[in-house]
């Protein structure tokens, strides 16, 4: 099996070699006929894939870790997450709504070695973002959903890559999943499985017709059948950069303008600035609408799933480029068109048989700020860097704002994914005007 191809760098020797592919599953047999039914929001996310990479600085403690220990820990770990070790099937009635059969098939594990050290790799990355894709082995679900794993893990000594089907849950579940692995490696016992929201059919009371408003945050794509990959024609590229605490402070004050006593939060400031920047290079009124995806911090329960994502739409009537950055920031903060109910109703009206994308319909700003990436502990070490993004994005593009480990967590790490042509211009603009100016 080959690793996903990406734009290759012209190195003579392979960067990733000695590749071994196998499966890891739950150590204890799951009761037969256990199933999990994804909710409507889960199904709306089915064409998206969360990808993440964790980097650890080399440490003598890691020298004693063997793949046997890692695999043995994984089997204990996956007892807690037996749901994700299942495979999708379709109900024969009900227009073939997908469900997860918890048959212990497992996640796919890939072990590989890298020709570069962590430091060399991170340096290479700053020039060529696409290299990061090499550290993740993940294939989309399909062409036969009964035989496609939902989660791929790639272990390369001291980097861990994850490819996670978004239909299972959001980034917080994925992050909790990986952090639990760290705990199991340290010798903790597996806890009880996370409670995932299950689909419950809601009956509309008779005489009441459910009002359907088409959500602005989804876009129909060509039917994908059982191959859960959206057919997108535009070539997307990514560009990532760190923002230090000082840079961020300056950006925030620029955005807050007159309201210096009540500064705009970091995420919203970044949204406003990048929105304006991208709008310069987008034509038409496409740039007047953006989607904001955040985590609902009010729901502090232990339920991790796509239900906790807050998806909202921000619309502006006037031109974004000419708008005042303060106004844009205020609009983003208000973010008052919530899409959750609309999405749910829309998916249910189609009985779960719809093929849509959510990320990238409009320019999508995604906040991963509250995700506990740096709480992962391996042999007492936290990762030196963690990178996450979503695959299968529409040509509206997406911006991911992640926490960093530097600056006491006050800085940010931003990844922007846009169509190739737009990205080059945006990258230049950001480097010249925005990041430069704030130093």
């Amino acid at each position, binding site marked *: *099996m080959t690793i996903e191809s990406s734009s290759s760098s012209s190195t003579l020797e392979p960067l990733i070699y000695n590749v*071994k592919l196998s*499966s890891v599953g739950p150590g204890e*047999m799951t009761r037969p006929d256990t199933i999990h039914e994804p909710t409507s929001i889960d199904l709306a996310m089915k064409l998206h894939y969360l990808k993440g990479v964790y980097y650890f600085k080399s440490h003598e403690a890691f020298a004693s870790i063997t793949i046997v220990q890692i695999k043995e820990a994984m089997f204990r770990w996956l007892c807690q997450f037996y749901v994700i070790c299942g*495979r999708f099937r379709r109900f024969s009635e009900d227009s073939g709504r997908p469900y997860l059969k918890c*048959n212990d*098939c497992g996640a796919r594990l890939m072990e590989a070695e890298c020709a570069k050290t962590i430091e060399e790799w991170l340096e290479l990355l700053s020039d060529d973002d696409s290299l990061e894709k090499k550290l993740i082995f993940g294939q989309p679900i399909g062409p*036969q959903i009964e*035989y496609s794993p939902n989660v791929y893990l790639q272990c390369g000594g001291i980097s861990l890559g994850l490819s996670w089907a978004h239909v299972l849950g959001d980034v917080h579940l994925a992050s909790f999943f990986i952090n639990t692995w760290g705990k199991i490696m340290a010798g903790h016992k597996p806890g009880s499985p996370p409670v995932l929201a299950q689909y419950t059919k809601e009956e509309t009371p008779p005489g009441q017709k459910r009002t359907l408003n088409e959500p602005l945050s989804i876009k129909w794509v060509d039917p994908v059948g059982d191959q859960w990959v959206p057919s997108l024609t535009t070539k997307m590229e990514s560009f990532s950069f760190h923002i230090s605490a000082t840079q961020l402070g300056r950006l925030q004050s620029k955005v807050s303008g007159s309201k210096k006593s009540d500064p705009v939060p970091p995420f919203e400031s970044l949204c406003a600035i990048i929105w304006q920047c991208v709008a310069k290079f987008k034509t038409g009124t496409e740039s007047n609408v953006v989607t904001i995806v955040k985590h609902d911090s009010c729901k502090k329960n232990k339920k991790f799933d796509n239900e906790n994502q807050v998806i909202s739409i921000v619309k502006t009537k006037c031109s974004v480029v000419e708008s005042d950055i303060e106004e844009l920031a205020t609009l983003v903060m208000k973010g008052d068109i919530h899409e959750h109910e609309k999405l749910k109703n829309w998916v249910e009206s189609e009985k779960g048989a719809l093929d849509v994308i959510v990320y990238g319909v409009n320019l999508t700003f995604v906040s991963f700020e509250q995700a506990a990436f740096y709480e992962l502990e391996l042999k007492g070490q936290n990762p030196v860097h963690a990178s996450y993004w979503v695959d299968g994005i529409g040509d509206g593009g997406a911006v991911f704002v992640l926490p960093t480990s530097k600056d006491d967590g006050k800085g940010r790490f931003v990844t922007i994914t846009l169509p190739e042509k737009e990205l080059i211009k945006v990258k230049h603009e950001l480097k010249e005007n925005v990041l430069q100016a704030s130093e």
Partner: protein
Amino acid sequence: MSLSSNSVKLKYLKLGYQYFVNNILSFLLITIMASITLPVLRNDHTNIIDTISHPLDHLNLLQLLTFTFLIIFFSTLYLMSKPRSIYLVDFACYKPPVELQVPFSTFMEHSKINLKDNPKAVEFQMRIIERAGLGEETSLPPAIHLIPPNPTMEASRLEAELVIFSAMDSLFRNTGLKPREIDILIVNCSLFSPTPSLSAMIVNKYKLRSNIRSFNLSGMGCSAGLISIDLARDLLQTHPNSNAVVISTEIITPNYYQGKERAMLLPNCLFRMGGAAILLSNKRRDRGRAKYRLVHVVRTHLGGDDKAYRCVYEEQDPQGKTGISLSKDLMAIAAGALKSNITTLGPLVLPASEQLLFLFSLIGRKIFNLKWKPYIPDFKQAFEHFCIHAGGRAVIDELQKNLQLSAEHVEASRMTLHRFGNTSSSSLWYELSYIEAKGRMKKGDRVWQIAFGSGFKCNSAVWICNSTVKSTTNGAWNDCIQRYPVHIPEIVKL
């Protein structure tokens, strides 16, 4: 109503007949004693002593000494020529770790990826898995878990070390045996035979003595476990005050068939990792603590018949890939081999009642040409426990039918097939371990181990339990025995 009362009457008649014939010597002895004692008792007591001591007065010293010497001589001759008792002190089965387990879904998914150009072969494997009687906890070696499988020689050696050393360490713990105390070492592994041999690998690992008698049996199939026991017995007859360690295993890594011939894909679905280490001894001091005593080993080889010889055959397929081909006549040949084996075993183990019935039935059919059905001796009279090689569901079904065994008699075999798969020569030991773990093994219980294998061979071993076995906490079944027995459906829904 009358039919059932008739059959009940017949049952009691048969029971009465069996009791009488099996204890005929006792009956005769009692009759003789009664016929002597009763008249004597009628006479006077004092006369008895006179009558007995009268001849002795005529003997002189020389005759007395000769008489005593002859008694001592013949009893010594008898004791010396009696074959040494061979004891099974203890045995240990390998328990694969959880990471090597293969649930059905994982097996089918990997199969689909590895054989993506052969959907028919995948379909065939799925149908086998549905009906095979295996469970979700059987294990394959690490090299076979990879996509695609990577069966190198190094991986094979790794598997051998994992299985054998693990079983031996358990055996040392259970028995308190020290490696340097081992006098005889016999290893049987049919399909993996490197140089230096697996027995040399063990000598190297545990630093065994330089005068050890080591043997490595390869190519002898699933019945090789009992062949090793037979060899150990012969050696222990020749060498007094010795012990022997027998290792029975099958190394799966090099034999995973990677082609598409159906007859050769079948072993992939059934064979799983497993191994056993057994300690046998003829030492006096082990008599007290040994679990079993070996009574008989009966070996039957049908290799003289071409069809039997070719029914389990290792060969290359048209694409050059090596695998083991199983012929469609396997069941018929196995039934024939069984008949041949029990013809020899029957007279050794069956009680006199069954043998007489068999004799009458034989005389009636052959000499008087009466249209009787051939009488199948009731082996349940001879044994309390049966360990039938878990070669596959069909083998166990066939034997259950032929020997008229109940579900409980074949439970150990079926459950071993479910939990561990077909572990080849070590499956008999997993089955024995199951019976022990269930607490069913009592002192005096007789066990029949029967194995089939390529050649075509059918080998039997008969053991008698030396002391009631307490179910231990460190066997291969310790963490799952409470779940068993399970109901195994005819066809599993995947």
